[in-house]
């Protein structure tokens, strides 16, 4: 990414005033990046920003409250920061936001689907249109459009919606809201039994690790989550699909009107359960009924935390 050097320069300038700057660097193999906590000048050199930088680093912010934190954000990540600001879970004066024009990140699951065995990655080159992966000696040229994360294909916020520093040029987007929810519509059109059966099957392999929750930037209860509490006792610890599924609904509901749809829940899931669908569904309805999207305006109020005496789009049910 040509903006990387600008970004590094901006970070270098800001670092003396900050406790830490969170970015990305190379991970355990060339195909993976990992979050990177920059405390010292030399850490800056390891900074990496490209299509492998999938993680939404806003997840770390609430627990670092009280520290001066710099954070590098993709457009979607910035919405999480805005939402956290809006809910006063972080303090604006303590957060320095480094934005850049994001051209999208890969979906590792898609790469796995195409490449198959990704256990031995020799090299990986990412350009705007292509990901070149060499796995176990075999070269794979993957068109970016085939491995781009779903959210990026229909991204409407490629640039940070709020930033203190911005590297490079802004990216323009032509996607519409509807573009992003075709999968929801398509899924919803299936018969009820099919959908019900789908979730029974998918949710069954959940291992209840709560990576979905802990990767979620808006799940700020964490240690106090109702998933494991006895008072209130919403869920049993039995390995029953009922409890696993219930948790996903709890997650979706607690995110209603707050979810910035970064997709970290689904990305984090070690057993690839398509749980983002629940959140997208909720977001779609929130948009439809309240014309609201989370993480855009730091001064807005999430729609389920407020009301109107006369609702514009809720017709009273004549029941």
């Amino acid at each position, binding site marked *: 990414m040509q903006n990387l050097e600008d970004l590094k320069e901006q970070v270098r300038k800001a670092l003396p005033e900050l406790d830490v700057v969170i970015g990305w660097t190379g991970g355990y193999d060339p195909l993976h990046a990992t979050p990177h906590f920059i405390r010292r000048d030399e850490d800056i050199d390891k900074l990496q920003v490209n299509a492998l930088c999938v993680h939404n680093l806003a997840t770390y912010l609430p627990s670092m409250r009280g520290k001066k934190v710099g954070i590098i954000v993709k457009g979607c990540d910035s919405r999480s920061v805005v939402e956290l600001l809006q809910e006063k879970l972080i303090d604006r004066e303590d957060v320095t936001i480094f934005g850049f024009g994001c051209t999208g990140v890969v979906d590792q699951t898609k790469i796995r689907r195409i490449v198959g065995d990704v256990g031995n990655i020799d090299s990986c080159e990412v350009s705007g249109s292509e990901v070149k992966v060499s796995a176990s000696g075999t070269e794979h040229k993957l068109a970016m459009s085939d491995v781009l994360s779903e959210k990026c294909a229909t991204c409407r916020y490629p640039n940070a919606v709020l930033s203190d520093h911005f590297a490079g040029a802004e990216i323009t987007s032509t996607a519409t809201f509807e573009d992003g929810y075709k999968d929801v519509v398509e899924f919803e059109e299936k018969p009820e039994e099919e959908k019900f059966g789908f979730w029974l099957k998918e949710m069954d392999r959940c291992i209840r690790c709560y990576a979905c929750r802990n990767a979620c930037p808006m799940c700020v*209860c964490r240690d106090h989550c109702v998933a494991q509490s006895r008072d209130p*006792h*919403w869920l049993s610890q039995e390995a029953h699909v009922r409890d696993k599924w219930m948790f996903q609904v709890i997650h979706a509901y607690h995110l209603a009107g707050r979810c910035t749809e970064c997709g970290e829940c689904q990305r984090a899931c070690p057993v690839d359960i398509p749980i983002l669908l629940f959140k997208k569904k909720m977001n779609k309805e929130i948009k439809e009924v309240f014309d609201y999207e989370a993480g855009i305006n730091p001064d807005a109020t999430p729609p389920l*935390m407020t009301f109107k005496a006369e609702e514009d789009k809720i017709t009273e049910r004549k029941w």
Partner: protein
Amino acid sequence: MKIGVFVCHCGTNIEGTVDTAAVAAASREFPGVVFATDTMYACSEPGQDGIIEAIKEHKLDGVVVASCTPRMHEPTFRRTLERAGLNRYLFEMANIREHVSWIGKDREANTNKSADLVRMAAAKLLKNRPLFSKQFPVNKSVMVVGGGVAGIQAALDCANGGLKVVLVEKDTTIGGKMAKLDKTFPTVDCSSCVLGPLMVDVAQHPNINLHAYSEIEEVNGYVGNFEIKVKKKASYVDWDACTGCGLCVEKCPSRKATDFFNEKLATTKAINIPFPQAIPKKAKIDPDFCMKIQKDKCGVCAKVCPSEAIDFTQKDEFITENVGAVVAATGFDLFDWTVYGQYGGGKYPDVITSLQYERMLSASGPSEGHIKRPSDGKEPKNVVFIQCVGSRDKSVGRPYCSGFCCMYTAKQTILTKDHIPDSQSHVFYMDIRSPGKLYDEFTRRAMEEYGANYIRGRVSMIYPKGDNLVVRGADTLMGAQVEIDADLVVLAVGAEASVGATDLAKKLRISYDAYGFFMEGHPKLKPVETNTAGVYLAGACQGPKDIPASVAQGSAAASKVLGLFSQDMLASDPQVSVVDIKRCIGCGKCIQTCPFGAIKEIDFRGMKKADVIETICQGCGICTSTCPQGAVQLQHFTDNQILAEVNAICRF
């Protein structure tokens, strides 16, 4: 917990369609239940004694009564538990009468359902915890909002009962609508002669502090300890200095000011005192018409005022009053009848409202008691009264009956005859509603002794003919259309919620109905209470009322306040939300959604936490369903209690 279950026959009310013995037998199998029996009348004295005995004999520490609705007897049985030494919250009711035995005759299904309801109640009871009220001190003073007859009555009764009273009136004088009336029905007494002494009492009462020309700006606090910000509107006259001598009014050259007191029948001076008996009798400048304020000319009033009370630079002033209770007595306003095109929509000067007619009849009114029609000042001979203008009419969004129009119209026909003996009154009416002591007799007198011509039917249009108006309507009793030549048409305009009532309701956190009338606590049993503790209602702010009803409510509200203040300490309802400080992450969502401002942010060892102010919390539980981690729990309706009920009947 050791639970006792008592399944009530309620005579045959329940036993008729529910096998109560079978329900009791089934209950014995439920977790926690160590005793179960059926009983003839659980609420009767022997029934209650039976419960107490069972509590003692079986060492029960929780009781389920399956009987009628808890809205009926929950307080009864809670007292029973207390008499047996148990905490009142270790009690649940299963409603097997209203929700079971009375709504179907299938004995098997009813018995089965009753047992389920007992199972749910017992399951919840297992999660119940004893709850205890907290005591807090009371500020034994009361604010009465509105100085109409209801407010005056409430204020006087409270003051006579020894309470400090703050009376807030938005106009410059108290007296309200009643002060504008000429006579009252059914005795045809002089209205101001009846009201006047009360107003004077208010002015002179040592316990009453009157803020006229003032409005409520902001309400904080809770029952026993309200903190209310009052806006004293600028009158441009220093009322401490003003003696009400009236010299300024006399000399003021600006005569075009709107005369609200006289229902705009006339104009008045830019500085004025609404009527001679006004309390307080103080002058006020209408800045829109004051040449000094508008154009910096004139200033005559300031020059003539012997006490130098005029202050053209006066600003609104805010004061804070601390009181323990509030009586809302904001009365009503008149429906804007001009929406009715068929009555001319306001374009015929000789179509007037009933209250304008009152001013016309009044000796202190603009025409000094002479009935003169507005267009040409002539004395009318044919007066047509039209009933239900803005009442009982869905088409204008006023489906309710205003209640008093039938009576005052009858009075006005009598007064018309008194004033103009050769006049003829015609009354178009829908129904005559006159339930009250001597009321029906009064309307009969209007018809029979005073010859008022009552026509049952609606008026379809009024149109001008020469100097006069023609009123066309239906006589439904005759089945014919009638047209009457009228010199003057008087519209019996209905009542609607007073302007600003809903704003005040929001500040007081009380509910109001679709028309803006304040909601009483219970339509039958709590007519002057609201659902906000410490806030009471009096008079027409709750719904249209005539004078005796308003006065009765004023007294009723006062008695409620006096009752409340008969205790030095108040007990808070322990069914409030409680924050588990260990689980709270301080996100503030509960604070954001609490309708009562009952949750505040606190600092706990350097961490933000939520804290419920018990005395303000009303126990709605919105916070509990908002808190994602369940850290704030509404006592007696905790997540686990509700989940226990769900689990009792839905286990896969």
